[in-house]
């Protein structure tokens, strides 16, 4: 009911799914390959994804043009349907907690937009985080006008919904994805008057080895480049869209040349008529579920934060593995290899045994992973944002889209009030405090807070976003019941939440958890000696684990529902059950029932505790997941 925020809410019923060996978060190429590989080695696997079908960002939808690798992914999906993977579709994971050694809980909400209101807890002995990435955005005047859309977002909408944001679409920003997006938009019938790339492509040439050992990657770029040439799409490098024109929607953009540091060169602006702009500046790993647990992060060559993983894709928190874009952006083939590698390594860890076949498989996967990773790093370095990009901003440019905080106000907080980091700016201006919790503006706010003084282009974004999705309070409160053990962080949160101002704020957003999840993070940090799998190589990079960084006092726990930024009361609804496929489970039935198994199996027992020997990964001739088609 939209206008009665303080009405008592029906308690939320939820259900537990216990007894899995491995919980995989994200059903993109990384998570799906990992789930199938783990099941092939005898593990019971729960694969949770917010979407209603597997595929992630790349293998999304049913677009008529099958993407490269589409057939291989279809085969993988078919394998999954007959495997022991329980695919939990439309499950939005908002928290992961460590309950003890080899004991994890993954907390999710169901429904197409996490609005089913039904909390689900999946318990597993290990967790593989494969949550992918989101687009990085750098603001510019006019970027909030309707018709300006994320480049990857336009691609996603085209793949899944077969629609375009306009008829004449300028594609701008930076990164290899832009060429792919422009070529799909053009193939779908849009006119693309220009592709505008802030860097250039010559940077790739500085990494001849990475290119040489990844010829398929070079071919991919050539393929998109060729498609654009055929369609006479001009590609302007070292340029950026510095203004969008229009009152209620896009009418034109100004494209300006940039210097080496991405500063606009005065007097070089050219106006291009268009009715939409697809823009993005590379991808950022979605790592908030892991940083909330204290996993260390590393700076990637293009200035994003990715999880530190060892040679077997394990994060710095033992038992929590990461694969795909969460461990650093690198494309679907790399994601696939990493997912499989992580799953095989986790199976070895859980069973305590490794046979010759599995050793050889691990070696081969690591070789492939390392080769692809070298290319990813070369690409990333070529598209790292220059520090002069903030010169695009006028004082009235909105930086935080949710809270409508302008660059002028952020600069004021920095220059006049002494803010030096994104967290302080947030407290002073509300930038990053809205719905998206700073996902969209985080990079921009950090750059502005650093005041252009940072030698690197993008300063670290220390803001923690422990909740991956806004969570109705009822879900937290429900967790509290019967939640024993060590998950005090979240259970405590539920209690605090219920005692919040009037109990009426329907959502708890991230800041609150700064206080409560820290304990979970520290508990998670066991010594590396606990690792059964020894890795001879150093991790890719280091940074202090998030949980060890000093954190400022938590500002606001629960937002008053009538205050700015508050959202409507969250009424539990009948969950929408997505298309059921074999091995795919939608959100559960209401009323605390566990979801019926599609094949009529006893629903309460989705997985049994491991039988002795069942997890033995080194069975000769045991089923193996198909290898990613990258060789």
């Amino acid at each position, binding site marked *: 009911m*939209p*206008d009665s*925020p303080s009405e008592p809410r029906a308690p939320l019923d939820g259900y537990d799914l216990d007894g899995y060996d491995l919980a995989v978060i994200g059903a993109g190429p990384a998570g799906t390959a990992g789930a199938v590989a783990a099941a092939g080695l005898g593990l019971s696997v729960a694969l949770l994804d*917010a979407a*209603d079908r597997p595929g992630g*960002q790349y293998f999304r939808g*049913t*677009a*008529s*043009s099958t993407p490269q690798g589409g057939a291989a992914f279809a085969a993988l999906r078919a394998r999954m349907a007959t495997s022991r993977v329980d695919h939990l579709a439309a499950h939005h994971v908002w928290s992961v907690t460590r309950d003890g050694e080899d004991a994890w809980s993954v907390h999710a909400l169901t429904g*197409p*937009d996490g*609005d089913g209101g039904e909390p689900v807890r999946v318990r597993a002995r290990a967790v593989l985080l494969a949550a992918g990435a*989101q*687009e990085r955005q750098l603001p510019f005047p006019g970027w*909030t*006008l*309707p*018709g*300006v*859309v*994320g480049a*990857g*977002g*336009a691609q*996603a*909408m*085209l793949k*899944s*919904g*077969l*629609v*375009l*944001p*306009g*008829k004449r679409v300028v594609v701008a920003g930076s990164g290899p994805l832009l060429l792919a997006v422009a070529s799909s938009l053009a193939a*779908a*019938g849009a006119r693309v008057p220009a592709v505008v790339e802030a860097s250039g492509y010559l940077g790739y040439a500085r990494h001849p080895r990475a290119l040489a050992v990844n010829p398929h990657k070079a071919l991919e770029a050539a393929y998109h480049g060729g498609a654009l040439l055929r369609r006479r799409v001009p590609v302007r490098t070292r340029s950026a869209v510095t203004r969008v024109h229009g009152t*209620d*929607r896009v009418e034109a953009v100004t494209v300006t040349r940039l210097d080496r540091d991405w500063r606009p060169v005065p007097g070089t602006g050219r106006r291009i008529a268009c009715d*939409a702009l697809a823009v993005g500046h590379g991808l950022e790993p979605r790592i908030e579920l892991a940083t909330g647990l204290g996993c260390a992060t590393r700076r990637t060559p293009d200035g994003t934060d990715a999880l530190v993983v060892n040679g077997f894709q394990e994060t710095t928190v033992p038992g929590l593995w990461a694969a795909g874009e969460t461990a650093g952006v690198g494309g679907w083939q790399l994601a696939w290899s990493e997912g499989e590698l992580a799953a095989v390594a986790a199976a070895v860890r859980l069973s305590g045994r490794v046979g010759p076949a599995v050793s050889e498989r691990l070696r081969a996967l690591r070789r492939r992973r390392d080769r692809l990773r070298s290319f990813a790093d070369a690409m990333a370095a070529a598209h790292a944002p220059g520090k002069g990009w903030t010169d695009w901003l006028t004082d009235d440019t909105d930086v935080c*889209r*949710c*809270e*409508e905080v302008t660059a002028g106000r952020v600069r004021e907080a920095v220059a006049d009030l002494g803010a030096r980091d994104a967290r302080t700016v947030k407290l002073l201006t509300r930038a990053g405090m*809205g*719905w*998206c919790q700073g*996902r*969209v503006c985080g990079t921009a706010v950090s750059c502005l807070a650093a005041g252009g003084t940072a030698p690197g282009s993008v300063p670290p974004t220390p803001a923690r976003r422990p909740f991956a999705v806004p969570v109705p309070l009822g879900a937290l409160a429900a967790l509290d019941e019967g939640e024993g053990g060590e998950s005090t962080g979240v259970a405590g949160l539920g209690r605090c939440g219920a005692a919040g101002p009037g109990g009426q704020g329907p959502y708890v957003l991230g800041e609150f958890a700064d206080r409560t999840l820290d304990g979970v993070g520290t508990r998670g940090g066991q010594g590396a000696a606990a690792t059964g799998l020894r890795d001879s190589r150093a991790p890719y990079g280091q940074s202090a684990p998030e949980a060890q960084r000093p954190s400022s006092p938590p500002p606001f726990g629960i937002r008053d529902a*009538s205050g*700015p*930024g*508050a*959202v*409507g*009361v969250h*009424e539990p*609804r009948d969950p*929408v059950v997505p298309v059921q496929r074999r091995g795919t489970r939608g959100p559960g039935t209401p009323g605390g029932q566990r979801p019926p198994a599609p094949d009529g199996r006893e629903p309460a027992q989705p997985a049994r505790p491991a039988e002795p020997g069942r997890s033995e990964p080194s069975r000769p001739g045991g089923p193996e997941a198909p290898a990613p088609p990258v060789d």
Partner: protein
Amino acid sequence: MARRRAPGVPHDTAAFDISFDGRPVRALPGQTIAAALWGAGVVAWRTTRVGGRPRGAFCGIGQCYDCLATVNGEPNRRACLVAARPGDAVTTQEGNGRAGLAV
């Protein structure tokens, strides 16, 4: 209004209607509400709380919350995630979408 649809997509006889601010909008099975609206040339279905500025889908993948719409009377649904169903009534969401409360 002319639909913008990728060529090569067969005409789907199972297309159905939803409504946007009272006028009919065609949707294809499997399309999200945001996709159906884009297909009808609509790119804004929300106004912001502070500036009253129009907004629509931005990230397309459920991350930015710019695409919030009121669907069948319920505010704050992410239109890029929620599938369109026959007869859905989508209305422009103003501010925080809660009628009767000052913002």
